């Protein structure tokens, strides 16, 4: 029997009080269709990086939810995001992945659009349209809101969405760590060429919740930890900097974002890392010193993986990269992966990181191969009529988070779960699904910007 879901149903599917989430939200095709409408047309979504369209005419075809979009820099140097669909009969006006062009010409009937989206060419304009078509009204559909934040290009289809920085809120501290140079210099990162794209047979929320703070899945990575691919030749990461640090899970449940991190002690000093390579080791050591000077207390934060609601996840350092989980039906996700390096890093450092990124990440990455196996079969085993009746358990660490975290004079925004002793918790996942539920139920951004009612604007 097909179940129809009303906005009111969603509170039953995500049970905040008991830390349970229905499997229906992962496998049900009606809910999936509803997500496209309620989440992906309203949330801020990651589209690409400024360094991918550095010159006028440069374009990169990306995706917002299920839909193809063009990220493009026009002749005046301004960046735009358009729906990749001709206004006449819907054909994709660009089927290349990236490149440089003066114009996008639709291969179906020949309407052509300038790099600022304006309709500039219409075959038979005089004879067939009698010059009566108002070309100014038929340019490519442009996202109403777009932002370039430290090189990251984000967009939303909802003109009433809050400004990007309001959407991000206190999570900005962590987003900055991703996009700033490792020495703390503003927006000092660039993309290494080659965007990984691959299909994972799983709902898009599985990877999103994994990246938001799943410290519990060490067994997934047992094999790579045994082999040792980290920058220092051990494990999958270099953990020397975590000595004496607290493990904290930070969630912004009113926004849905979350991250894990390690908080170094107040008196911590930069320590050498990546010692296998003297140039790389020295580079990061100097960066750490510079960042400590710049950021003071904030330097103590060693950021880990995180997710910005709904489908942008990232690793801020090891390996520094962005993942977007594009929904492709309830049972399929198309993953795109961008890799970041400090633009000003010496070539040896970039090369060292490039090799590490490749062996760690994506379908050929020794670490992530095992993640995808788990998402694949967790999803598959949740689709059955019986399986769907049993909620997933997200109760780990419930009731142990604080909203006034302070350590040695450093106050942290968000709700913070100290997992130093516990080693894992699921408050970030609970925050994610709590926000998911709000997005599915709220009529508009007046209902979604809940923090405004609480008196804390940002």
């Amino acid at each position, binding site marked *: 029997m097909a179940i129809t879901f009303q906005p009111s149903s969603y509170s039953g599917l995500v049970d905040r009080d008991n830390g349970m989430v229905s499997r229906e939200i992962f496998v049900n095709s009606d809910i999936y269709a509803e997500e496209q409408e309620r989440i992906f047309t309203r949330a801020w979504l990651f589209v690409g990086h400024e360094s991918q369209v550095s010159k006028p005419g440069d374009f990169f075809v990306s995706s917002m939810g299920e839909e193809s979009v063009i990220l493009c820099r026009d002749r005046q140097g301004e960046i735009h995001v358009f729906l990749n669909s001709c206004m006449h009969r819907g054909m994709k006006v660009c*089927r*290349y*992945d*990236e*490149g440089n*062009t003066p114009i996008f010409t639709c291969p179906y009937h020949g309407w052509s659009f300038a790099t600022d989206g304006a309709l500039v060419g219409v075959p038979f304009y005089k004879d067939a349209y009698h010059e009566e078509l108002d070309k100014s009204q038929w340019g490519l559909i442009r996202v109403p809101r777009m932002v370039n934040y430290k090189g990251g290009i984000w967009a939303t289809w909802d003109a009433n969405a809050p400004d990007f920085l309001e959407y991000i809120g206190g999570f900005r501290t962590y987003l900055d760590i991703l996009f700033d140079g490792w020495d703390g210099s503003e927006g000092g990162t660039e993309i*290494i*060429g*080659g*965007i*990984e*794209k*691959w*299909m*994972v*047979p799983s709902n898009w929320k599985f990877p999103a919740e994994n990246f938001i703070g799943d410290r519990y899945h060490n067994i*997934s990575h*047992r*094999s*790579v930890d*045994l*082999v*040792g*691919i980290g920058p220092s030749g051990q494990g999958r990461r270099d953990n020397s900097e975590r000595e004496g640090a607290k493990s904290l899970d930070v969630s912004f449940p009113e926004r849905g974002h979350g991250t894990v991190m390690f908080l170094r002690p107040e008196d911590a000093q930069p320590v050498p890392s990546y010692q296998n390579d003297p140039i790389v080791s020295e580079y990061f050591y100097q960066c750490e010193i510079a960042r400590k000077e710049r950021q003071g207390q904030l330097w103590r934060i060693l950021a880990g993986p995180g997710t910005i609601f709904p489908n942008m996840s990232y690793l801020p350092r090891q390996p520094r990269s962005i993942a977007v989980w594009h929904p492709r039906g309830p049972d399929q996700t*198309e993953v795109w*992966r961008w*890799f970041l390096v400090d633009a000003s890093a010496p070539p040896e450092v970039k*090369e060292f990181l*490039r*090799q590490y*990124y*490749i*062996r760690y990440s*994506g*379908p*050929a990455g*020794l670490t992530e*191969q*095992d993640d*995808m*196996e*788990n998402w*694949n*079969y967790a999803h598959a085993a949740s689709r059955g009529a019986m399986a769907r009746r049993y909620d997933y358990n997200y109760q780990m660490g419930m009731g142990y988070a604080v909203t006034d975290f302070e350590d040695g004079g450093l106050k942290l925004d968000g709700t913070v779960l100290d997992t130093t002793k516990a080693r894992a918790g699921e408050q970030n996942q609970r925050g994610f699904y709590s926000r998911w539920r709000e997005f599915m139920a709220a009529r508009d951004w007046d209902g979604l910007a809940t923090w405004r009612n609480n008196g804390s604007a940002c």
Partner: protein
Amino acid sequence: MVVANDPLALLLLKQDVEAFLYHEANLLDDRRYEEWLDLLSDDVRYWVPMRRNVKFGELEREFTREGQDINWFDEGKTTLTQRVRQILTGVHWAEEPLSRLSHLVTNVEITEATPSAADAGEVSLRCRFIIYRNRVATETDILVGRREDRLRRVDGQWRIAQRQVFLDQNVLLAKNLTFFF
């Protein structure tokens, strides 16, 4: 040398090289990974680029660049050995239980033999492959593409000194690449 100069020597060489390629494919399909590693020269380069859709006339940008861009694989023997060791841990969930694999190697063409076909110490070749993978119950992947190999004779045995794999896919349709091409 231009290999066509000595047709008979070329025929024998091709026979020899093909036998080696089939032997190699069998080792992979028989899961004899450590023996497969022994077929790689110590300085082997193993490169599998990603593949873009680009405009006609810009085909030089079709593949991500070796040594510069992110690629599916761009590595030497150290990382390849780590991959084998990972499978042999028995807890590499993406290969546990092990996949069932068949490597079909075809369209073999020798493009260069040095110093000569009759006395080749190094051979460049081009071929096509189909890799059929089936795992767990119904999971199936078919990967097809072109391979360009360079083989070197070391102590009378062929060793793979370079492998370049050009996959016929843009968005990779397989969830992972836990096997070797």
